[in-house]
């Protein structure tokens, strides 16, 4: 059953559909929340909140605007960043590594089996990130994965705010080009993959 059918069942109030979506996306959601918060307890709360939000207001997801997975993970990201900022306000966090990369050797119990499409997308976005110039990658990682605001990034890197902004935009543009190239042919496979021609010419 595809995501949209499951979404329709969630909308109709069928909890088993929510559980099926959980089975599908909880590992992505938890991995993301863990990376942003760096805290397994917070990350669990974030994941639970996101799935509950889907349950409570399924119509907040608009199928015309992209796949359910993207929407759900954006929600997870948003809440994870909120949690980090809330926590940061409450107490001065011990300086943690700027990047909580997953341990090189993962516990085999943690290993997640995913469908081929998701794994392929993952590979592509990682490659695109790895292909960014280091200074661009840094602002993206600080913003997206560490939940820092652009003024915070500017003061931490001791560069002007305007530089952070242009660097961020340049990075996003490059990421898109990198992900778009090989992605194009494959977009048709799920029909909604987010590729749309035009609107963003390379300048």
């Amino acid at each position, binding site marked *: 059953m595809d995501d949209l059918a499951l979404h329709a069942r969630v909308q109709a109030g069928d*909890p088993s559909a929510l559980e099926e979506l959980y089975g599908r996306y909880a590992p992505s959601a938890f991995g993301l929340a863990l990376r942003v918060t760096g805290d397994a307890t917070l990350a669990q709360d974030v994941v639970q909140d996101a799935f509950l939000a889907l349950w409570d207001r399924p119509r907040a997801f608009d199928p015309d605007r992209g796949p359910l997975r993207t929407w759900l993970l954006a929600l997870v990201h948003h809440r994870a960043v909120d949690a980090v900022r809330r926590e940061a306000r409450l107490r001065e966090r011990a300086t943690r590594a700027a990047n909580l990369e997953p341990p090189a050797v993962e516990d085999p119990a943690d290993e997640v089996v995913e469908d081929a499409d998701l794994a392929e997308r993952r590979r592509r976005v990682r490659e695109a990130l790895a292909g960014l110039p280091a200074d661009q990658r840094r602002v993206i990682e600080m913003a997206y994965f560490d939940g820092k605001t652009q003024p915070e990034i500017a003061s931490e890197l001791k560069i002007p705010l305007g530089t952070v902004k242009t660097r961020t935009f340049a990075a996003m543009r490059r990421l898109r080009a990198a992900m778009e190239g090989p992605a194009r042919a494959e977009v048709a496979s799920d029909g909604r993959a987010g590729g749309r021609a035009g*609107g963003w010419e390379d300048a």
Partner: protein
Amino acid sequence: MSDPHDEALLAGYVLGALGPEDERAAERHLREHLPGCASCRATLEELRSVAGELALAAAPRRPPALLLPRLRRAVERRARTRRLRPASVAAGVVLAAALGGLGIVRGGPGGVAEAGLLTQLSPEHLDQALALTARTDAQAVAVGPATEVHAPGLDHFYVFGRDVPLPPPGSVYRLWLVGAAGYRYLGEFRPAPDGTVVLRIEAQPQAWDGVLVTLEPAGSAPSEPGRPMWSSAG
């Protein structure tokens, strides 16, 4: 802002990384510039899809086994609450009715106020309204310091704002639909202490000319609109 098509602003926006000042600028930009600029709307969508894919750069991790049963219990609790109080508590929202504002409009031109047409959402739900604003077919209209946003095909719309002044002590804001046939009373609302207001209205705005916000003495009968404050109608 010197650059009318501020794409860099949109990039920070989709990453959720703007500072407070730029955040406000972005919201204004989405509201005022994007509805009329196809190129920026397309850029926003592209940026959004890039940001969406970034989520996949984090390694997937199996969540603790206890999380699913926890989620299941939370869903069951909500199912019970839902039966008790339809469509309200489940969403973690505050019904305007709970504020005591939803009386019956006696003999008013708009007829009877129907409970539940107006829902005041907590400030953290502002993103729902903003998400609608970013839709390519969305229409945004100013309602004083707030914004009304709607889109074709939806049976609800939003009125939201971030700098709505608190009503003077002893008075309340009331929201009305304005149409050729008269007014329909929706209920009272109150800005959060920081001035944020997020209202969801269960009505098709196409059937009405707009909304009207009035300032009225607390506890007075909402028989017809009192002192008009702001309106999106003509």
